[in-house]
């Protein structure tokens, strides 16, 4: 039996709201029985309709890496953020740096992160990143000790509202740093004396 457009739209709406994670098109598709099946295109057009219907509401239906989710519009943040008396868990500089290195250099071992940061990466930081499901072990480097290779997850992208890694500031920036630091090394000695 073919379901009405309105019913399908309601089901998509309810499913995206009820899902604890962003919901992909495939996951939406499996909610329907064989005789109720809809094409990807039909689903996408209904999602578009839903997005329009929420235009005047406090929420928006957005697409992130792993699918669709409803999100409270940023302009209400000044009030909504008061629900969490302690500010949302603060990300330390060390954690952000480690995360950035994993994001840009993945897959990467802990030793490699340490080489880049110049300091030991604390176990807590790695654990915190695992706890948030922002990183995973994707394999092992075939060197003595077979260290784990770390990479970022979809949840990492979702948490930072990125659709893909390509949305990260380009790697070129890092090459720039290398040239900058070289330049700085050349300049410093000279300049410091001024």
């Amino acid at each position: 039996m073919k379901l009405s457009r309105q019913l399908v739209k309601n089901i998509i709406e309810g499913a995206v709201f009820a899902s604890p994670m962003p919901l992909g098109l495939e996951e939406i598709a499996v909610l329907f029985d064989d005789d109720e099946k809809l094409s990807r295109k039909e689903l996408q057009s209904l999602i578009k309709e839903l997005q329009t219907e929420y235009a005047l509401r406090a929420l928006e239906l957005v697409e992130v890496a792993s699918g669709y989710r409803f999100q409270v519009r940023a302009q209400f943040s000044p009030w909504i953020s008061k629900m969490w008396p302690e500010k949302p868990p603060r990300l330390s500089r060390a954690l952000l740096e480690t995360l950035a290195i994993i994001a840009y250099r993945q897959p990467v071992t802990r030793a490699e992160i340490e080489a880049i940061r110049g300091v030991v990466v604390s176990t807590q930081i790695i654990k915190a990143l695992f706890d948030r499901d922002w990183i995973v072990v994707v394999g092992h480097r075939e060197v003595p000790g077979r260290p784990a290779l770390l990479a970022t997850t979809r949840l990492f992208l979702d948490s930072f509202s990125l659709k893909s890694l390509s949305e990260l500031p380009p790697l070129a920036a890092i090459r720039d740093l290398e040239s900058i630091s070289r330049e700085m090394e050349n300049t410093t000695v000279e300049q410091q004396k001024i």
Partner: protein
Amino acid sequence: MSVSVIPESVLPIDAVNDENFARVYGEILTKLPEDLYIPPDALAVFLDDFEGPLDLLLYLIRKQNLDILNIPVAEITRQYITYIELMQVLNIDLAAEYLLMAALLAEIKSRLLLPKPAVPSDEEEDPRAELIRRLQEYERFKKAAEDIAELPQEGRDVFEAHAEPPVRDLLPSQPFFGDFALLLDAMRDVMKRTALQQSHVIGREGLSLEQRLQEIIVRLRFGETIIFHDLFPASEGRLGVVVTFMAILELLKQKMIELLQDSFFAPIYVRQYLEVAE
């Protein structure tokens, strides 16, 4: 009560109702009458359907459309004990409570058989009263449990609807000290813009790191928040950028200034370092 897997026709109770079988009551059962055959597994499953002796008793009573208030103790006791004996013959482990109830029923029955005194005294209670009270009490909670099971249940009938908090709340809204990736990205922009000014002559005198540190501190001394890019005077060219950048790194390291950014691609702001509890 959950659905029993045993068809009604093979329930042992039906067999127990047979008058001939009643004669074996009280004797040690070594062999079951042929019409009483029940697969041992099925009997065990059947017992699993009961939540205890009170539940089994209620079943026996309800099955015969009897009122709890007026239990024919002798009949119910006979059925109950037959049941228990069947279980034992079949080597089914019985919870101690079932045996205790059998003893209690037997006791009530024997007390009822005693001749009543001609003038009943007030204190003497019907021996069945306590059992009836317990059966009633159990039955109302059994019903209450069924009612609760009918309520809309979260995760089964009811699904909560949630949305993500605003993006700002997911990102560090507090100052953080130089996320390198973000800092570098901003730097790249600065470099790009200053590249256009490259042909200008660089005035060496104005480019002391010490002096730049001072200048930045002076600009921020009243707690102003300045856009990161604005700290880089375009006129100084590439070298100026490098000196300013070094000054910023130095001030960050000394925790004299802090950088703020709400999200990727949002402008980075610089301000005096404010002490906040980590």
